[in-house]
C-alpha cells in the first residue's frame, strides 16, 4: 500500500537550495568500463581496517575475498574484477585528512571472470536473521549513504525492539542523483532489500522517506509496491528541504520522534538504512554477490556529459571523468559527496570507495572560492536555519576562543555538520570548520586525558604495590623480632644457639679481616 501523506512534522530550520539534479538524471545507470588498475583501500568503512588475505603476485577472481574484516566493527573487501594483485602498500586515497592509506592494488586481466558465488537465499523469510546478517557481513556491506557503517553490525539490534525500519531515500543534497536513478532503474531491488532488512530486524513496518523532487523515482517505487501488494511498507513523500535526509531529521519528519541527543535511533525503536544499501542487501542475499561496485553520480559544469555510472570499487576518478566525456574548460573544483557536506579533493587520481556517492566537478560559478570571512555580528541567521536548534554563533564564539567546555555547554556534539549555518552566514565565516576543529580538539584532549589517567593508574598501582610489599616486609620483620624477643625468655633453643655460635665465628673472622662494611643479617 503506497501512501502519499504530507508529513505532520517539520524539523526546525533547513534550507531551500536549488537542487541541480536534472543535469545528471537524463539517462539510466551505465556500467562503467573496468579500469586497468584498481586501488582498493583497506579502510573504506567505520571501524578497523580490513586485513589483506592475498599476496602480491596472486591471481584473483571477481568477487573473491581479498581482505577480511579484522574486528566486529569492520568490513570484508572483495576483488571488483579478476586480475593480479601487484602491490599492497600506502596509496593516496579520498580522505579529508589528505593522508595516504594502505591499499590493495589490482591489475585487471580484462576478463572480468567471477569466482563461484555462494548460493542465493531466495527464501530468506524462513531463515534466521543471524544467518542473513552473516551473509551481509560476508558481502562487506556498509551504509552507502556516506556513513559507511557496517550494515551487519547496525542490523544487530541485540534484542532491542525495532518498530519501524526507515529507508532513507531523501537524497537531500543538491547535485546527487545516484539514489534517484537507482530507484528508477532497480525499484525491485530496493523493495526486496527493504523486505530482507525488515525480516532481519523484525520491524513492524517499513517507511520509505523520499523528497518530492523525485517524481519518477516515486512513481517507480509506488508501481512496484502496488504490483506486489505489500502490506506494512509505505512510501512517504516529504517536502524538499535540506537536510531532510539527515537521519534524525528524516525520522522526525516521518514519525515525529526525536532521537535523543547523543543517542541512537534504536532508542526510539527505529532503524534507518540508506536506499542504496537496501539494493546492495538484495544483491547479496538474492544473488550471492558481494559489494564490489556502486552507483556514482558524476556531475557539475566541469564534466562534459553528467550522469550516473555503476563503478567498480577502486576505479580512479579520472577514469570516470574520461568515460563521461572528459573535463570541460570550466573544471575548477572536485568534490566527493554533495556540495553541502562533501569534501573537496586535491586530485582526481584517487580511487572510488564504497562511500563515494557523487563526484562534482564544479565550475567557478557553481562553487566559487570561499569569500574572505568578516567578523560575526551575531545577526542570528544561523539560528534560524539550524536543524539541531543550536546557537551556531555562540558555538563559533567559544570554538574560536578555544573555550571547549563552553562549546560543550552549547551542545557542540549535537551538530550534524550540515552546513546550513555557514551557507546563510552574511560574514562568510566557515562555521562548520570551526566546529570540526573544536570536536577534534576535544577528542584529542579526551585521548590525552585517558592516556594520562592510564599512566596515573599505573603509577598508583605501582606505588600501592611497593607500599604493600614494604608493609608485608615490615610485618615479617616485626614477627621475627617478636619471635626473637619471645624465644630467649623461654630458654635455650639448641637450633638458635647453634646459629648464634656460627654467627659469632663468622663475625670474628670478619673482624680479623678488617672488613667493616659487612653486617650480619
Amino acid at each position, binding site marked *: 500500500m503506497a501512501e502519499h501523506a504530507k508529513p505532520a512534522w517539520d524539523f526546525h530550520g533547513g534550507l531551500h*537550495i536549488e537542487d541541480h539534479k536534472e543535469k545528471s538524471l537524463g539517462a539510466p545507470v551505465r556500467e562503467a568500463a573496468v579500469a586497468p588498475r584498481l586501488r582498493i583501500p583497506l579502510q573504506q568503512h567505520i571501524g578497523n581496517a580490513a586485513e589483506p588475505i592475498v599476496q602480491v603476485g596472486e591471481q584473483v577472481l571477481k568477487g573473491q575475498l581479498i581482505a577480511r574484516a579484522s574486528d566486529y566493527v569492520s568490513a570484508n573487501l572483495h576483488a571488483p574484477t579478476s586480475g593480479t594483485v601487484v602491490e599492497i602498500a600506502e596509496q593516496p586515497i579520498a580522505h579529508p585528512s589528505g593522508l595516504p592509506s594502505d591499499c590493495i592494488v589490482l591489475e585487471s586481466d580484462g576478463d572480468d571472470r567471477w569466482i563461484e558465488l555462494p548460493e542465493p537465499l531466495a527464501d530468506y523469510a524462513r531463515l534466521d536473521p543471524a544467518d542473513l546478517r552473516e551473509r551481509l557481513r560476508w558481502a562487506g556491506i556498509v551504509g552507502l549513504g556516506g556513513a559507511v557503517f557496517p550494515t551487519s553490525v547496525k542490523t544487530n539490534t541485540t534484542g532491542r525492539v525495532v518498530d519501524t525500519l526507515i529507508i532513507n531515500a531523501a537524497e537531500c543534497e543538491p547535485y546527487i542523483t545516484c539514489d534517484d536513478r537507482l530507484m528508477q532503474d532497480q525499484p525491485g531491488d530496493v523493495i526486496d532489500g527493504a523486505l530482507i532488512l525488515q525480516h532481519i530486524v523484525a520491524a513492524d513496518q517499513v517507511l520509505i522517506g523520499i523528497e518530492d523532487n523525485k517524481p519518477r523515482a516515486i512513481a517507480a517505487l509506488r508501481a512496484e509496491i502496488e504490483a506486489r501488494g505489500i502490506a506494512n511498507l509505505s512510501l512517504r513523500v516529504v517536502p524538499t528541504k535540506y537536510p531532510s535526509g539527515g537521519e534524525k531529521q528524516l525520522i522526525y519528519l516521518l514519525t515525529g520522534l526525536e532521537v535523543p*541527543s547523543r543517542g541512537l535511533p534504536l532508542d526510539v525503536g527505529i532503524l534507518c538504512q540508506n536506499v542504496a544499501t537496501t539494493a546492495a542487501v538484495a544483491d547479496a542475499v538474492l544473488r550471492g554477490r558481494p559489494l564490489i561496485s556502486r552507483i556514482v553520480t558524476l556531475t557539475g559544469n566541469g564534466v562534459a556529459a553528467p550522469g550516473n555510472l555503476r563503478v567498480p570499487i577502486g576505479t580512479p576518478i579520472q577514469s570516470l571523468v574520461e568515460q563521461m566525456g572528459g573535463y570541460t574548460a570550466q573544471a*575548477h573544483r*572536485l568534490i566527493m559527496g554533495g556540495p553541502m557536506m562533501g569534501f*573537496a579533493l586535491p586530485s*582526481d587520481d584517487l580511487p572510488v570507495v564504497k562511500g563515494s556517492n557523487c563526484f562534482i566537478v564544479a565550475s567557478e560559478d557553481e562553487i566559487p572560492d570561499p569569500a574572505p570571512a568578516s*567578523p560575526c555580528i*551575531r545577526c542570528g541567521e544561523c539560528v534560524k536555519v539550524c536543524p*539541531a536548534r543550536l546557537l551556531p554563533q555562540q558555538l563559533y564564539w567559544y570554538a574560536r576562543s578555544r573555550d571547549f567546555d563552553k562549546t560543550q555547554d552549547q551542545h557542540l556534539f549535537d551538530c550534524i555538520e550540515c552546513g*546550513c549555518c555557514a551557507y546563510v552566514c552574511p560574514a562568510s565565516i566557515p562555521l562548520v570548520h570551526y566546529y570540526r576543529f573544536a570536536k577534534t580538539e576535544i577528542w584529542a584532549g579526551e585521548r590525552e586525558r585517558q592516556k594520562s589517567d592510564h599512566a596515573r593508574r599505573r603509577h598508583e598501582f605501582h606505588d600501592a604495590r611497593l607500599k604493600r610489599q614494604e608493609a608485608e616486609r615490615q610485618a615479617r620483620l616485626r614477627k621475627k623480632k617478636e619471635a626473637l624477643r619471645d624465644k630467649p625468655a623461654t630458654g635455650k633453643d639448641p637450633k638458635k644457639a647453634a646459629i648464634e655460635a656460627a654467627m659469632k665465628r663468622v663475625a670474628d673472622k670478619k673482624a680479623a679481616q678488617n672488613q667493616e662494611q659487612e653486617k650480619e643479617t
Partner: protein
Amino acid sequence: MQFPVASSPHLQGNNNIRLVMAQVLLALIPGTAALWWYFGWGVLINIALAGLTAVALEWLALRMRGRNPWPAVSDLSAVVTAWLLALALPPLLPWWQTVLGTAFAILVVKQLFGGLGYNPFNPAMAAYAFLLISFPADMTHWLLPSVLSGETLPLEQTWQAIFQGSATLAPHWDALTGATPLDHMRTELSQNHMISEIRQSPVWGDFGGRGWEWVGNWFLLGGLFLIWRGVISWRIPFSMLASLLLIAGLFWAIDPETHPFPAFHLFSGAAILGAFFIATDPVSASTTPRGQLIYGALIGVLVFVIRTWGGYPDAVAFAVLLMNMAAPTIDYYTQPRVFGARKEVND
C-alpha cells in the same frame, strides 16, 4: 588533474554584511525624512558630519591596528552607527560635539574593543550617553517642530548655528527652540500639574508630542520593513514596546492624572527608533530567541522607570546600555532546547 580544496559547505548564500547594513540604512530613510520635515536641515547636516567622521576614524583606527581598512569600512557599519547617533542629537548641536560623540563611538566603544562584532555596548547609544552627561544643556535643547514654531530654519542659518554657534541666531533663537515633549512632560509633572492640564499645551498632538508622533510612525514603517526582510527579528521590538505599553498602561490606569497615557511613551521620544533600530543591534543584544524577548521586555521596563523616576527625560540610551551588560547572562540562561534533548534537561 589537481584542484584547490576548501572546507564544506561549498555553497554559499548571497547574503553579506554590507547588504544587511544597507537595508538598515534604507529603513532609516522614511523616519529621517520625517525628522528633516519637522526639524529642518540640522538633521541632515548632523548625519553627514557624523557619517564622514565615523568613516574617516574607522579607516584611521584600522590602519593603526595594522588591518586592511577597506573590508571594514565598506561594510557600512560605521555609517549605521553614525546615522543612529546623529538622529539622536539635537538638530543644532555644535559641530564639534557631534564629531566628539562620533569619535567616542567609533574609537572608544567600537575599535578599542576589537571592532565590529566585539563591542559589548551599542556604540551610538554609548556616545549619546557620553554627550548627554558631558553637555547636558546643549543636548536637551531641541528645535521645536515646524508645526509648532510655524517656520523652518533655512539651510544657511542652520549651517551658521551648527558651525559658528547658535548665538549668531539670537533674535530667532528663542522662538525656535524649546524642550522636547518628554522634557516638557517631566517639568510640568514636577510642578504638580495634572496631565489633563498639561495636555492643553499645543506641544501635544493626537497620541504623542506634536510632530514627534509622526516621526515615530515613519520609523515604525522602516522597522516593519526590516522585519519583513528578515534583517531583524520581531522579538526585541515587540517585547520592548509591549512591556513599555503594559507598564505605562498599568500606572496610567492607577492614576491617569500623574502618569501620562501609554501612547505618550511610544510616540514622544525615541521609543520606536530605539525598539526597531537600536535595541536590535545584534552585536550588543541578546542572541537567543527567548533571550531576545526577555532583553526587549526589560528595556521597555527600564525606559519607563528611567523616564518616570530617573534624572534624564529620555531613557532609551541608558536602558539599552544597561541591558547590553545583561545580554551575555541572559543568553547563557536561555539556550533553546536542542533537538533530541530531554525536556527536563535545561541547563
